[in-house]
């Protein structure tokens, strides 16, 4: 089981959904990922510009409390878990997924790195405007029947489908 390369998407989805149990019972919050970028980004930015900590939004996110640093640990753990799973199954990855050559119409790693940086930038800028991402609004918000989260998820798919169809090439 642990050495398989792929599980059924339903099994994996159930495992992910069950993580709401410790999130709500122990941490008293829902699964989420994008706030941790504000926590880590804010800490790093404060080394160069200590005045950033006077912004209330940043101060709230870098505060040493269970909720902020639980989420930082969660996303760090995601990298460790994916690494372990990959090692156990022996699914070795290329440095860049082969689909990018078709999607970008170029085999240049520099072009892919630039697109990845830009994509990451707007991904988090958008997630912070919306106050959540695929995890916070998607997994947690929809499970809680939140109206705003459902609107946000619909917008994510509209933006994602438009970009993947109009900007990227057929993979």
């Amino acid at each position, binding site marked *: 089981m642990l050495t398989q390369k792929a599980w059924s998407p339903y099994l994996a989805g159930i495992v992910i959904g069950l993580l709401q149990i410790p999130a709500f019972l122990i941490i008293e919050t829902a699964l989420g990922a994008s706030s941790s970028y504000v926590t880590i980004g804010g800490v790093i930015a404060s080394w160069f510009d200590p005045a950033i900590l006077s912004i209330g939004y940043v101060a709230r996110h870098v505060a040493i409390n269970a909720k902020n640093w639980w989420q930082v640990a969660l996303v760090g753990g995601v990298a460790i878990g994916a690494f372990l799973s990959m090692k156990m199954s022996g699914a070795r990855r290329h440095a860049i997924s082969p689909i990018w050559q078709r999607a970008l119409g170029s085999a240049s790693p520099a072009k892919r790195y630039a697109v990845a940086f830009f994509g*990451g930038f707007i991904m988090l800028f958008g997630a912070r405007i919306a106050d959540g991402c695929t995890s916070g609004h998607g997994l947690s918000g929809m499970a809680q029947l939140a109206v705003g989260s459902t609107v946000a998820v619909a917008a994510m798919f509209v933006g994602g489908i438009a970009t993947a169809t109009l900007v990227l090439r057929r993979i």
Partner: protein
Amino acid sequence: MSVTLAIAVGLLMGVVFGFALEKSRVFEPGIIVGQMQMRNFIMLKVFLAAVATGAVVLAVLNGFGYVKLAPKAALYGADIVGGLILGAGISLAGACPGTTLAQIGAGYRDALFTLVGGLFGAVAYSYAEPALSKTFLGQGGGKLIFSDLAGIPYWVGALILAAVIVVILVALESWRPWRPELGNDSDGDIASAPAASTKTIHIVPAE
């Protein structure tokens, strides 16, 4: 709760989360971009299965009074504008904020650029937040949930959502089975020529 304990719980939960993301292959750019181009439905399946499971879990925990719900406030302008930008970013990054870390763990080098770009994006938003929150992006209602609108208890609404999702998933699976969508290298790359695979030869019946 102590911060140290919260970090330990977070790490442990993250390892399980990352393990499941890797096993589901939903972190693969081929699966995420494939979903956004409507040629691969593994992402939607993982997502909906996780939402349905979360809904059942919360129906029980909240229904019996063990936990309080923590929905985000409905800020429609911010939800729409932010969601559209976030979605565009997901397609260009071939990742979402959580799966970026799974890509790094699995060895995708471009995901490091996604991560650094994401940190810059979060810091840029932080500087803009005091100004943006005064615009229409800061306007909105309270913590609105559908079951309150319908006048039913949350647990009933959550179980209805889970049941609807199960029906959708059964239909989706019979329309698009998940195994062929993994691709030869379990990366969602289903367009590349199958390398020396004799199993996929189509046998054309004689006329």
